[in-house]
């Protein structure tokens, strides 16, 4: 009876198993419970597999069964034991290193480390090339997994024993692999049928080989390079398979594992392309300067991206590419998130190609009026030319001709002109006075008996130069006539606005001279001016030099030509983005601005 049952149910026959050999009483005492337990275990296992393969379960139940089954499967058990082992090792090492902080003595001799790594590398290589050599791969995942865990244990133990952080791959952890193999087993998928899965396993092994290789020759820094090569090859292979068989032909575990890398790679490539395009837009072949590129928002990032990434070279490819993608994606917006707070809050464009200027609030410093006129016409020409291609072409040819004709001038357009400081020597000073008088004589009715009214003179607001031009010239005529006696008139008549501006700037000196009793010297003039300015301008604004727009920052922008000093750098930029073209204080058109260095 007993023998027939045992024959029918082979799992009950555990007589071949024993712990202690021999026929002693002790051996029997130990072996009998062992055999019973083995029989029970095999029975449960068999029953479990039989049950899980039938179709009488709902999907949810099957899922639960599979989950429970994982913990009792060989993969689950190995994963569990390995993780506990590694965890203990790491904890132990942290205690030990705290005790002996000063001496970085390695426990294992370097030769032993080499041998350990080499043996594991050998094992891994055997596993790696097994699918290429023979076709019998039924237990391949099993073998692979065991060697994989062995590699993990060796790497962790050796690294910790020499006071280093063990290298780990973020793509393939033991747990992930065990889960993947278990699911493949339950779904009865043969790993050899899917080249993607096989390649995935080989990449996992190869990444471990890289780690051991790097450890063997003490070149941790080169890991990233190797890992990048490996991953790029594999991603290329994946892309090829995807384009050949479609996206859904690839197993879902591989999509989960490698798609983030692909996506990050895409982000990185797209960002770099955008940046290069921006550089190309900025590129000015006639006047190449690095400053053009420095205005770009990502300039500092692109120059220091390796510092931003903060990598040593011993990370693996996926960590780095994901980090880079996150940095690029977050950009300059997350000032508060501390990830890249080295970006300035507002990136100040020092200088912008005038063809792209919309608001004159973006013009740094004053430029000559003629140049600005030129650029306006160029912008207008370009704007009109966009509508029909032929005229655009002709305009472009004209533009090119202009470039060829005077390349130096074009180069200077981008910078602010150097001759903002007008050289004042005495001769030019006097000739210009004469000329303005001469041109004035044509317009006015030569009323020399006209006496300037000083009170009225004072009432003229400084902001209204243009409208009160005639009054000014009349008021100053008395003094200027005196000057005329000394100098013979020069025939060059200065009609250009630049000279007129120069004349207007001297107006104040004239009026001060008219008011003062004695001869006005430079020192006297400066003291008068100092007193006046402290009385008039600083009295009202003494306590408040905050920006008129935001009231938060200090004012540091002067607009030209109205010289209004009212806004801060941040507000200038936000105003320029709203296309403000006239001064917010006096409504006169703004040609440019100057930034003051406060503090």
């Amino acid at each position, binding site marked *: 009876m007993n023998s027939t049952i045992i024959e029918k149910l082979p799992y009950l026959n555990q007589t071949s198993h024993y712990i202690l050999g021999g026929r002693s009483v002790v051996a029997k005492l130990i072996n009998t419970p062992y055999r019973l337990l083995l029989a029970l275990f095999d029975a449960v296992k068999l029953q479990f597999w039989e049950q899980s393969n039938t179709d009488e379960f709902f999907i949810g139940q099957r899922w639960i069964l599979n989950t429970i089954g994982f913990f009792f499967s060989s993969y689950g058990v190995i994963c569990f034991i390995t993780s506990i082992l590694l965890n203990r090792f790491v904890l132990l090492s942290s205690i030990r290193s705290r005790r002996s902080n000063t001496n970085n003595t390695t426990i294992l001799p370097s030769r032993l480390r080499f041998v350990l790594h080499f043996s594991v590398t050998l094992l891994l290589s055997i596993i790696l090339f097994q699918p290429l050599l023979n076709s019998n791969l039924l237990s391949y995942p099993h073998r692979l997994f065991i060697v994989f865990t062995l590699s993990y244990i060796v790497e962790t133990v050796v690294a910790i024993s020499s006071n280093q952080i063990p290298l780990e791959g973020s793509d393939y952890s033991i747990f992930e692999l065990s889960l993947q193999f278990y699911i493949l087993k339950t779904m009865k998928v043969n790993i050899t049928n899917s080249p993607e899965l096989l390649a995935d396993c080989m990449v996992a092994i190869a990444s471990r080989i890289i780690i051991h290789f790097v450890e063997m020759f003490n070149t941790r820094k080169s890991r990233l390079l190797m890992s990048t090569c490996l991953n790029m090859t594999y991603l290329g292979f994946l892309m090829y398979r995807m384009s050949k068989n479609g996206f859904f032909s690839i197993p879902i575990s591989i999509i989960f594992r490698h798609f983030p890398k692909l996506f990050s790679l895409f982000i990185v490539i797209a960002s770099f392309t955008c940046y290069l395009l921006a550089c190309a837009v900025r590129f000015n072949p006639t006047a190449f300067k690095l400053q053009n590129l420095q205005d770009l928002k990502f300039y500092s990032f692109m120059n220091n991206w390796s510092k931003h990434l903060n990598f040593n070279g011993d990370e693996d490819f996926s960590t780095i590419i994901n980090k880079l993608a996150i940095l690029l994606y977050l950009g300059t917006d997350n000032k508060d998130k501390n990830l890249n707070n080295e970006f300035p809050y507002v990136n100040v464009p020092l200088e912008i190609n005038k063809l792209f200027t919309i608001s004159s609030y973006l013009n740094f410093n004053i430029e000559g009026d003629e140049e600005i006129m030129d650029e306006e016409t160029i912008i207008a020409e370009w704007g009109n030319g966009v509508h029909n291609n032929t005229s655009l072409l002709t305009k472009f040819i004209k533009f090119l001709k202009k470039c060829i004709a005077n390349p130096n001038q074009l180069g200077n357009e981008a910078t602010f002109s150097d001759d903002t400081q007008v050289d004042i020597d005495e001769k030019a000073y006097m000739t210009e006075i004469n000329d303005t008088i001469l041109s004035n004589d044509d317009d006015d009715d030569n009323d020399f008996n006209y006496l300037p009214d000083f009170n009225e003179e004072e009432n003229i607001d400084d902001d209204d130069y243009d409208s009160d031009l005639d009054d000014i010239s009349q008021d100053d005529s008395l003094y200027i006539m005196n000057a005329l006696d000394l100098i013979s008139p020069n025939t060059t008549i200065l009609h250009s606005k630049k000279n007129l501006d120069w004349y207007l700037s001297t107006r104040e000196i004239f009026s001060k001279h008219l008011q003062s009793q004695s001869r006005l010297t430079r020192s006297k003039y400066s003291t008068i001016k100092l007193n006046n300015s402290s009385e008039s301008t600083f009295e009202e604004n003494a306590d408040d030099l905050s920006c008129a727009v*935001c009231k938060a920052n200090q004012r540091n922008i002067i607009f030209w030509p109205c010289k209004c000093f009212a806004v801060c750098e941040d*507000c200038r930029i936000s*105003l320029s983005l709203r296309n403000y073209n006239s001064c917010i204080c006096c409504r006169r058109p703004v040609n440019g601005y100057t930034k003051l260095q406060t503090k």
Partner: protein
Amino acid sequence: MESRILKEYKDSRSLQSQYILALDPISTDDLTHWECTIKGPLHSPFANHTFKLRIDIPQTYPLTTPICKFEPFAMPHPNVNFETGEICLDILDTNWSPVFNIQYIVEAIVWLLNEPNFKSPLNLDLANLLRFDDLKAYHDLISYHLNNSAK
């Protein structure tokens, strides 16, 4: 924007003006909605009357204009829409500059009560009376409306 409005709120606490009787945010938690009470200028048909203004400040302030309206809506003025209380004032439209503040706007509205502009009317009847210099009819119509709404 916040610091700017806070500053204006601080300034409005110490505000002393002949015509601005009150300038307060509706709730101190939210400084984007303000209420203002102004007095009609002395030598205008609006003298001896008080008017309420409602000022809504957009998020983009001071780069864009606040939205100003006469709250009880029945405001007889050539540049104010009688139905909606909407105000036609150049600095509230194209001539806005970010240096203006709420107090400045209110002062400009008081000034507008004194000096209506019939060239950009929102109330055609009053504007036409003003255009043909019929000041008596203009004054009478305004006081009729004001007394009517007071009752």
